[in-house]
């Protein structure tokens, strides 16, 4: 990962975030062009940093924690732009961008640990990684939509409009965002897990099925499956669905980060955690 480019991206993100604050505080209908420009430039710089890292190891730069966090933050920023340009939710930045900033920051300060195990090659692996990350990004949006929904719903139920009431989108928009991102996220996650299984069955020996990360990802997948089916049938709408989305996101974070520390083969720290 090219350190200068990543730090540049970080500074531009910070600048962009600060510039969005006046628009949110003053209840403007749109974010200022300067803030969007700063964030856009940050995104470009980030992309360059990732491209440089990818070129260095000749594969998608997701093979260590630092790169994975950075890649996720990058995808999250892309998702932010997509959603903002479609729905014009001014407060969206407040919910998504600080997370992006923190992830990029962690990524920038972690030491570089290239992980070029020759075992980590192959077409299935690429599809696996790409679809998992896409799924994570989409489900991040589901989480953000759920949080916005919960806050707005509470304000509407309490019947006392407070700060958020004026700045959050309608329940319907939150719901639509929740639903659409789930429609993208769950299939991607499913594809990712499936291709992961295919690849692992060829590349690994032993009871890799019991690896903590893989178990955690299955739990996450199940939670989102439940969310999806209750959504379709209408049994859980609105607030309950939002709670489940929050739980699902927590499971996702555990899978992404936590299990990495515990996992043997699938982790980023193969020296910790041994398979039974």
């Amino acid at each position, binding site marked *: 990962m090219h350190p200068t480019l990543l730090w540049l991206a970080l500074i531009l993100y910070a600048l962009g975030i600060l510039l969005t604050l006046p628009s949110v505080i003053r209840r403007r209908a749109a974010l200022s062009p300067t803030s969007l420009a700063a964030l856009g430039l940050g995104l470009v710089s980030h992309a360059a940093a990732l491209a440089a890292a990818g070129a260095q190891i000749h594969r998608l730069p997701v093979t260590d924690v630092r790169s994975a966090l950075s890649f996720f933050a990058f995808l999250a920023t892309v998702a932010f732009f997509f959603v903002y340009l479609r729905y014009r939710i001014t407060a969206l930045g407040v919910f998504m961008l600080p997370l992006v900033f923190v992830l990029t920051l962690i990524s920038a300060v972690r030491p570089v640990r290239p992980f070029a195990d020759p075992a980590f090659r192959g077409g299935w692996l690429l599809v696996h990684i790409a679809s998992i990350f896409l799924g994570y990004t989409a489900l991040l949006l589901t989480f953000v939509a759920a949080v916005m929904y919960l806050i707005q719903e509470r304000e509407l*139920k309490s019947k006392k409009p407070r700060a958020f009431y004026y700045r959050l*989108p*309608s329940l319907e928009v939150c719901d639509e965002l929740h639903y659409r991102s789930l429609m993208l996220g769950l299939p991607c996650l499913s594809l990712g897990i499936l291709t992961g299984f295919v690849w692992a069955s060829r590349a690994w020996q032993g009871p890799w099925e019991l690896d903590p990360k893989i178990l955690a990802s299955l739990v996450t997948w199940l939670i989102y499956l439940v969310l999806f089916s209750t959504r379709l049938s209408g049994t859980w709408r609105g607030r309950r669905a939002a709670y489940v989305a929050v739980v699902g996101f927590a499971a996702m974070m555990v899978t992404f980060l936590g299990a990495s520390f515990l996992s043997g083969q699938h982790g980023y720290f193969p020296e910790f955690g041994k398979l039974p």
Partner: protein
Amino acid sequence: MGLRKAKPGLAVPRVLHKTMNLVLAGINHRTAPVEVRERMHIHETHLSSAVSALIQRAGILEGLILSTCNRFEAVVSAPEHIEAEPVVRQFLADFHHCDLSAYDQYFYWHRQEEAVRHLFRVAASLDSMILGEPQILGQVKQAYAVARQAGALHGPLDEVVNQALAVARKVRRETALGTAAVSVSYAAVELAKKIFGSLHGKTIFVIGAGKMSELAAKHLLQSGASAIFVSNRTYERAQELAQAFHGTAIRFEQLFDYLAKADIVISSTGAPHFVVRKEQAERMLAARRNRPIFFVDIAVPRDIDPAVNELDNTFVYDIDDLGQVVEANKKQRAREAVWAEEIVQEEVQKTMRRLAARDVAPTIVALEERLNRIRQSELERHRARLGNLTSEQREAVEALLRGIVNKILHGPITELKSGAGRPEHGALVQLIRRMFGVGD
């Protein structure tokens, strides 16, 4: 001194007046009670002739009259040395056939920059009874159109009023001044939008056909709601209202057969008990697969059991709740008004600078003309005493005279050009003109 009088109906060219002298006289809902406002009101059918009469007064170049139920404003522009105030007072006294001294206590008078600021604030609805109300802009536009047609706007006042309209639009764009609802029925619409996003395709159900529910339904339909059902104890009344809104009337006995279709329920029956109870709301939700329902309960005593609000995906607002929303929104508007005032202040400065700059070029030209005339006439006067001069000597004399004139002019011209941004510039321009005897 020739005074220009614009005649109505004639296309008057855009004249660059040399300096601006604006006077505004007005009353509003804060300074005058309704009887006084009534007295001063000029109906729109008489507005054109009123403006024409105003600008025909000696000393008045341009004029505009704004007359609404909450305010009356008359603003004129005049040449710099004219005292426009008495002329305007006399016009008002004559037009309304009254003794204006009886009304002096109600009038406010603004001049120059204050007049500009007042106009900007009025157009931006910062002076209105309800901050951010949308009607005033249309009213100002109307007054502008009438004055323009009467040939009463062709100089600085025209520019100022145009700017006022532009500032009003800017305030509307850059602040949320006019957005949050400050009436109960609009608050209901706003809440519905917060729940449902767009109201297109949404169904309204009116239980109890009364004035308030009619108003709320009307606003909701205007905001995009598509279908409406009406139910009332007396079926005929329900039919009346349903017909007015191109909706469907439902017999009261069959209420719950159709109520589940509603996304928004407006209830205002006179019933002493609850019309919709928690169990009934639960059944509605089940029938709708938990799609949200918004209950607007404007009845006293209440029609919707407050326990319904405990259910997921229902939102029950009674008349007090709506009132609370309106109060919160009013506070919000007051906060937005602070930003709006800043915008107005900025725009006033810009406009004053722009108008001042227009004064400078003609003044410089007039100055040069005057001094050059003096130079030439003095030379002519003393030609006899100079006797016969060689061409060289004549040139020398003329160069001498030109040199003096230029050096004298240098000071004032530099001041005129450099001072254009400063607030005292207008006074400076007038002073220089007076000092050098440069009139209109």
